[in-house]
């Protein structure tokens, strides 16, 4: 069965500094990987996804993520954060195809400090 680990529950970072949010997954087959963002009192919004091809995936709001198969990781990065990036970020994994379930990580709260 697949699983997702987000090691950092909270990440504080100063405005305009770079940030990396870590995500590791476990699966015995090929996977599809996702990052979602949840702003306060809102639903989750898809930031980016990796299905196949280039391991560097660009998403909305200047975020990108890199798929590393050997390290089973899919870390999210942004070179310069803004106050508006303060939110909860969820990594998710699917074993794809059919109606396979998506498993979400426990989330990382990104706190941008002015």
């Amino acid at each position, binding site marked *: 069965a697949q699983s997702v680990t987000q090691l950092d529950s909270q990440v504080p970072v100063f405005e305009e500094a770079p940030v990396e949010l870590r995500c590791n997954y476990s699966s015995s087959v090929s996977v599809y990987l996702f990052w979602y963002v*949840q702003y306060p009192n*809102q639903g989750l919004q898809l930031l980016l*996804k990796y299905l196949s091809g280039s391991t560097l995936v660009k998403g909305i709001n200047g975020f990108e993520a890199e798929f590393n198969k050997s390290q089973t990781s899919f870390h999210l990065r942004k070179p310069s954060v803004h106050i508006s990036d303060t939110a909860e970020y969820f990594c998710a994994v*699917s074993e*794809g195809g059919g*109606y396979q379930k998506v498993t979400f990580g426990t989330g990382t709260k990104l706190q941008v400090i002015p």
Partner: protein
Amino acid sequence: DTAVSQTPKYLVTQMGNDKSIKCEQNLGHDTMYWYKQDSKKFLKIMFSYNNKELIINETVPNRFSPKSPDKAHLNLHINSLELGDSAVYFCASSQGTGGVYGYTFGSGTRLTVV
């Protein structure tokens, strides 16, 4: 024009009551879901419907009953509410499987059972 809309946004009710949450999507997606997010932000799938057919039914109490009158609507009825049912319930939709294309989430219904 909201893509996935849920009503109500907030629901406060007493133990033992029966309540319903409604969800509608105008994206033309053929798959809809109910997710539960607990107080620690952990997201767990409850149900999934594809073109009105139940395809995922996780281990949830049978007090929870989903209904999909058509592929644009998915409602959730909860009987005999318990304190532990307090959570945020998210409706989501996807074109095909969310494990490949990603989900579009509603803004959530915060259920508080007192």
